[in-house]
């Protein structure tokens, strides 16, 4: 009995051990698997967390790099001349910003010339210091704040016609750009809003034209144009002052007044190869600085699907009684008014603009009526068809009508 009892216990123990060992082994194995999966999961979470943090770095870094700009291509049909496809302009704008303190802005302008070469220009390059909520110091080469067209409307994806109004291009009545310091910003004015820009700059240089009297052989001079395109040095040491104030009595209306004053000197003479070897760049000996004054006014009114805008600019250069190119005073005046209407619930837009440009030279004076039809593929990509009815001196380029097709893309 005792033997059998011991024997039974021994068998029971052996049986129990033989049952428990596999279970324990299985449990240890399952725990190890779970631990392994947990570790793998932990690693994945850690990696994911790292990726999220890296993504957040891209979202809100202290330094931001950004590129915007615009480009246009098209086709020009000119009365009595060959039609041409044109590459237009590629104008990238680079922004390099540090927090809300400073931003470097630069716009390059690439154009394909008639000879197939590429022309590059620095349209503007400024360091913008955001000093307070109401003041930004814009230093460097900047677009002229006189009026609205040059500083805000000239990019092809913004301009509702395929060409600039006469007098608002290079050597026109409106200054293009300048180089110096500018303070600008906006502020509330009771229930209205206002914006301002004041600047000091190197100012423009003046082009003169030499003409020889066929009868007497005497060479005379007259002012040819004002080159207001942001010169990198002030060759005559005379600074120019200017600015613009804009008032918005209601959100859909802005009225602006502009002013610039200073002195400018003839640095370039064209038209007499014997005397000046066709073209001289730089200060001419003994030239007198002349008074230089610009006044301008502009408005915009948005009502429903219609936008109305207009702008007037007058540039005056005083006389000089001494110096090689001594000549009388001269003035350049241009104004335009433009209406654009977007057909309701469509992507079609009609545009009508009238411009009157007067200069000291009858050959470039021009009255232009421009009619445009635009198709807005998207809000920043439009196809523009513009027809210019130009009225100028008979036989001059200013009298030739043109039709322009343009694809303009702002990015």
């Amino acid at each position: 009995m005792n033997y059998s009892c011991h024997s039974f216990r021994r068998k029971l123990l052996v049986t129990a051990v033989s049952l428990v060992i596999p279970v324990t082994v299985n449990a240890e194995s399952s725990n190890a698997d779970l631990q392994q999966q947990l570790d793998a999961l932990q690693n994945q979470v850690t990696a994911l967390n790292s990726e999220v943090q890296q993504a957040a770095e891209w979202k809100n870094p202290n330094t931001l790099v950004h590129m915007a700009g615009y480009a246009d291509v098209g086709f020009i049909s000119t009365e009595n001349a060959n039609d041409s496809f044109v590459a237009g302009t590629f104008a990238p704008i680079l922004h390099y910003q540090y927090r809300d303190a400073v931003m470097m802005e630069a716009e390059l302008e690439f154009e394909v010339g008639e000879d197939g070469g590429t022309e590059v220009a620095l349209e503007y390059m400024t360091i913008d210091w955001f000093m307070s909520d109401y003041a930004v110091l814009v230093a460097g080469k900047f677009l002229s704040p006189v009026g609205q067209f040059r500083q805000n409307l000239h990019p092809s994806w913004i301009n509702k016609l395929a060409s600039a109004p006469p007098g608002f291009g290079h050597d026109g009545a409106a200054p293009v750009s300048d180089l110096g310091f500018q303070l600008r910003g906006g502020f509330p004015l009771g229930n209205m809003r206002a914006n301002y820009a004041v600047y000091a700059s190197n100012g423009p240089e003046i082009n003169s034209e030499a003409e020889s009297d066929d009868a007497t052989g005497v060479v005379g001079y007259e002012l040819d144009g004002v080159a207001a395109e942001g010169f990198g040095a002030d060759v005559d040491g005379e600074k120019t002052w200017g600015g613009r104030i804009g008032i918005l009595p209601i959100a859909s209306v802005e009225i602006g007044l502009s002013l610039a004053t200073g002195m400018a000197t003839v640095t370039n003479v064209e038209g007499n190869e014997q005397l000046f070897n066709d073209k001289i760049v730089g200060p001419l000996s003994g030239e007198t600085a002349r008074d230089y004054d610009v006044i301008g006014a502009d408005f915009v009114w948005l009502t429903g699907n219609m936008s109305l805008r207009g702008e007037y600019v007058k540039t005056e250069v005083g006389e000089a009684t001494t110096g090689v190119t001594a000549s009388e005073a001269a003035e350049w005046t241009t104004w335009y008014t433009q209406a654009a209407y977007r057909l309701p619930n469509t992507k079609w837009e009609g545009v009508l603009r009238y411009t009157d440009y007067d200069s000291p030279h009858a050959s470039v004076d021009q009255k232009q009526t421009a009619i445009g039809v635009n198709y807005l593929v998207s809000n920043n990509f439009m196809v523009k068809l513009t027809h210019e009815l130009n009225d100028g001196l008979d036989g001059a380029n200013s009298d030739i009508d043109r039709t322009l097709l343009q694809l303009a893309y702002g990015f």
Partner: protein
Amino acid sequence: MKYLNNAICKSALFTVFILFSSGLLITAQAADFPQAGNFSKGSKVWADNCNRCHNMRGPKELRDDQWISTAFHMRVRAGLTGQETRDLISFLQASNTKSVASGSAQITAVLSKGVTAKETYDKTCIACHGGDGKGAFPGTPDFTSSDGALSKSDSVLIDHITNGFQSEGSPMAMPPKGGNPNLSAADISAVLKYIRETFEK
């Protein structure tokens, strides 16, 4: 004249230097960047200013960081104040993402509690649709037109408001919930009812 001109120039530069030095022109930089702005005011800044020069650019066209540089660029161009710029960035950054079903219906309900339909319209919708319902800029649907947007059924319009919608001829799409993620389903139904009662002919 030359002496006078240069004397004015130097005097002005000296004056500006004094202003800088005294801190009258310069404000200390904020610790947070970008500083939070006001969504509703930002939508108004966007609607009031952008199409004065160019066609409206929709919030979805750019990422959050791209909107920051773009807004600062436009601050210089359009003469915006610093506060208007912050408000504008807040609006654009909140409006360029798809509506996210975050399971935060309860939070949304709390955030939007007590806001009337008119207040919702004035804060979220008015920037684009205007105070008169005719649209604040070209291409926006005219609520007062008998065959316009309000001729559609409530279920269609609620879907458009909730998920965003691009109207034909509009320069940009309406962002989901008008760009205001705090709107609840009840808010959307209420504001649609308000729009119908106020503008529908």
